[in-house]
């Protein structure tokens, strides 16, 4: 187990190292002098003298060797300092941290909704394969997976905000504001969770230890809870962590539609404005959380399922 832990941590550190190099190189990709780009972003005036560009280059240390710059940038980044936003002139962390907390609550709300619906549905479908519930669950999951959230979102707004007036159409200032975006975001993970929990439970229910438990006279619901769920839930857990990581920055469209001040919208606007420090900081935060969450899930996997612990060690 210790070897497994060390190995995963090492992979985590290497991954983040590579990602940090890529994030650092963002201003250099696409050609052009970064200092000139920064000035252009600040003053939106294409006629810049070389003297102005050189002055900024010196001020920001952009004339130093690139490895030097990277190490300096990395040193600051580790402490959470990604510099100042080009457009709003505030530290990147004051923009990223609140946005991140908004996105985390939105992602968790959506995924919990998805899980609460999908898990029972998947298990019910697995216990009676080919039955009515199974067919309904399969069809529901296919439907949910195929519905684009940028279509579901506006249609929900039309129904529940415009016609019925039950829910606010956008913004972020209370529990009511989370309902529609969470539902729109929950649809696709719900479809996948249903399919995965059905497949996992199907496999588990065919396992000899289930037959053994039933033969010993354990009732079916009890077998399901005591023996089935513990193994059947593992793939769903992995998928949950993937989706959680993916939704942190991936809910761009929903955040734009519902005017939610989350990570997706922050990165979207900073990409539009070419606000490089915010892009770098945002990406590093999201990916760090994503990689840490998936690594922890992997470790939990090992804790819950001794077979994996043995084969990986």
């Amino acid at each position, binding site marked *: 187990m210790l070897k497994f832990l060390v190995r995963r941590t090492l*992979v985590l550190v290497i*991954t983040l190292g590579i990602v940090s190099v890529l994030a650092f190189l*963002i201003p250099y990709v*696409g050609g052009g002098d970064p200092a000139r780009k920064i000035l252009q972003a600040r003053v939106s005036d294409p006629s810049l003298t070389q003297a102005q560009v050189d002055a900024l280059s010196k001020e920001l240390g952009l004339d130093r060797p690139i490895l030097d710059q990277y190490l300096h940038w990395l040193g600051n980044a580790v402490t959470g300092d990604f510099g100042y936003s080009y457009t709003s002139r505030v530290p990147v962390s004051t923009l990223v941290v609140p946005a991140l907390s908004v996105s985390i609550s939105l992602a968790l709300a959506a995924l919990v909704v998805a899980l609460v619906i999908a898990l029972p549905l998947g298990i019910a479908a*697995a*216990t*009676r*394969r*080919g039955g009515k519930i*199974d067919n309904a669950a399969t*069809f529901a999951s*296919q*439907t949910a*997976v*195929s*519905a*684009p*959230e*940028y*279509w579901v979102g*506006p*249609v929900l707004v*039309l129904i529940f905000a415009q016609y019925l007036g039950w829910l606010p159409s956008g913004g972020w200032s209370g529990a009511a504001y989370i309902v529609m975006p969470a539902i729109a975001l929950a649809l696709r993970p719900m479809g*996948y*969770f249903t*399919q*995965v929990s*059905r*497949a996992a439970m*199907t*496999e588990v*229910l*065919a396992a000899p230890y*289930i*037959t053994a438990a*039933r033969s010993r006279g354990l009732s*079916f619901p009890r*077998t399901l809870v005591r023996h089935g769920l513990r193994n059947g839930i593992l793939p769903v857990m992995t*998928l949950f962590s*993937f*989706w959680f*990581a*993916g*939704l*942190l*920055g*991936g809910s*761009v*469209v929903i955040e734009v539609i519902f005017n939610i001040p989350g990570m*997706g919208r922050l990165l*979207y606007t900073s*990409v*539009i404005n070419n606000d490089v420090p915010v*892009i770098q900081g945002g*990406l590093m935060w*999201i*990916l760090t959380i*994503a*990689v840490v969450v*998936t690594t922890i899930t992997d470790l939990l996997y090992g804790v819950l399922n001794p077979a994996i612990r043995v084969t990986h060690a």
Partner: protein
Amino acid sequence: MPSLTTAPPPTRREPWRRSGPPSHRPNLFAVAIRGLRTRHWTFYLGAAILLLVLLVLLLTPWIAPYDPAAQDLSNRLAGPSTEHWLGTDHLGRDVLSRLMWGGRFSVTIAAITLVICAVVGTVLGAFAARRGGWVDEVLMRTVDVLVCFPDVLIALLLIALFGTSYGTLIAALTITGWTPFARLMRGLALEINAKEYVEAAEILGSPKWYILYRHVIPNAIRPVLAMSFLRFGHKLITVGALSYLGLGVQPPDSDWGAMLLEAQPYMETAAWLGIIPGVAIFITALSVTMIGQGLDVQKPRRKRATVTGARDASPVRLAPIEGEAQ
């Protein structure tokens, strides 16, 4: 007692050589569609819808009722009528014609991206399984990390760096899109390479390409095909999402996502503008999903309930791998 030396030498069968007995060449097409008649009914429904959509898109230049760019400002935001079956948009353009022309962009971009992803993914996956060791480790860790990358975000970033173009769009969607295929193919290749018949073929001295062609590809083609169909809907939705954000298909071209974006300000007065293109994406995505699952999952045969309470538990392969994050 006959001497052992007088026995005739055993004839070696080397089916990869052109001479000799008729070879058992796999008919890959037959393998891919084998068991087509025993599919679930949703498979046929999906196939019928997809064929209809593709046929309409193919024939668009001849059957579209209007020029998709022709404006008629005196007749803007008109509801469905006999002249304009699906009404007109904010510039008085015929929605049905725009839907048909836009669909050509949506479906083509999604299809090109998908084919590149499938090829890159399966090749890398098979390579990782074959080589093993650090190659396998590096590739699979890359996959693990890329799975966490939200693809819309990566596309945003690349478009910001390299500008909006179809090339950027396709490249951006490929970077994050090949991973499910690599995972699937690696798993399949590991499974197939461990089979006795592959071992036997190796002992008989079959060349690697022959094993690949005779054993690996026929065994992998259906799951890969199923995965392709399952991912197609996802690609279609993502392409639409980027266009919806104004970063995908650029004017004067238009696709279903761009139509939804244009319809946003008129949701209250002309709701059909914001509903119809979404329905088009939804129907197309649903049809390919139905086909994909139909290919992947065998039609469940009814068996009597077992002691476990579960019926007919044949393994289902794709779903856990397919359910990647966005």
